[in-house]
């Protein structure tokens, strides 16, 4: 009788612990993985430009989390992003590999030569961040503040009327606007 009870108690305890452990393990792995992808994605510049050879920022983040990509594949993020990724992932820091592209010294955004635009909407379809507005057969315009400079709109344009121009908003302007501190103003 005692032996039976002992057997039952032990078996149920073992079962309980195994069950809880399995659940925790599954939850833990999935949650940790999802969270890590999220955290990596948060560090990426979200240009969705595909220079990293992946189809966007999240796919690159996923590849980084799985260890199938390196931290030096994001030219728009530059060395700052590479450094942040190195810190997050505990890998040795590296600067961006120029084979994935070299960014111009100043941030560039797309600009449409409006008289030349034929209103084909191809660039609107290509823009991953909804930064181009315009209707069929009407000229299109880039919303300067929304453009991330991914250059994805340039190849589809049939009349080559899009070019990259230096962006006007810069950190110094942001700084100036947030600095109303000259005394007795």
């Amino acid at each position: 009788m005692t032996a039976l009870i002992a057997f039952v108690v032990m078996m149920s305890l073992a079962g309980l612990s195994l069950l809880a452990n399995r659940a925790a393990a599954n939850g833990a792995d999935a949650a940790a993985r999802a969270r890590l992808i999220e955290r990596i994605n948060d560090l990426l510049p979200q240009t969705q430009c595909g220079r990293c050879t992946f189809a966007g920022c999240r796919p690159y983040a996923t590849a980084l989390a799985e260890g199938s990509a390196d931290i030096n594949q994001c030219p728009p993020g530059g060395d700052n992003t590479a450094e942040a990724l190195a810190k997050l992932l505990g890998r040795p820091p590296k600067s961006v590999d120029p084979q994935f592209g070299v960014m111009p010294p100043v941030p560039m955004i797309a600009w449409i030569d409006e008289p030349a635009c034929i209103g084909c909407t191809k660039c609107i379809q290509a823009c991953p961040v909804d930064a181009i507005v315009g209707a069929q057969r009407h000229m299109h315009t880039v919303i300067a503040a929304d453009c991330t400079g991914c250059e994805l709109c340039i190849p589809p344009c049939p009349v080559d009327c899009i070019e990259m121009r230096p962006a006007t908003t810069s950190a110094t302007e942001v700084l100036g606007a947030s600095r109303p501190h000259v005394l007795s103003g």
Partner: protein
Amino acid sequence: MSSLLLILLSAVLVSMVAIRGVEGWRPFADTADVYENAMGLVHAHLIAIPLVAISTWILDTLVLAALQLSYLRTPAFVALILAAVSIAELLVRRAGTRAPARPAFTMVLATNSALLGIALLSGQLASSFARLLLLAAGAAGAFAVFLLAAATLYERVRYADVPAPFKEAPIGLISVGLMALGCMGFIGLIPE
């Protein structure tokens, strides 16, 4: 009392190692945010340690002792710790708290829970259930304070001008050593 403190301190030391991330222990490792990881570990301990203490005590006194199965104590204890630790981990992960990655997290949590659980249950510390409850809460709370203090201390030392040979692990050990020195003041507070 001082042995309990010693266990607490070693638990903190081991936990710090886990939080900082040791190569091979972290498939999805992130080494940044020592404090957030410490917080996750603290939450898990706050659940697991009282759970281990209480469930073991209940099983021990109400089931095993009543049924004269005391020889099953050790295997039952092991099973209960595994269950309690897993439950704690599940709860922490579900709540979305940041915590160190497996297996470091589980191993540290299980080891600490086992050590503290044994320390609480053995000896004359837990003479009654109420006292056990108090002790378990106290141990978990003390662990929380010490671990969080060690984590923030690590963040401060990281930016200090520590001489090269002392960087990282050595200064961590010195810090924990001095922490232990401070804890020596507790000697004699409660007679063993």
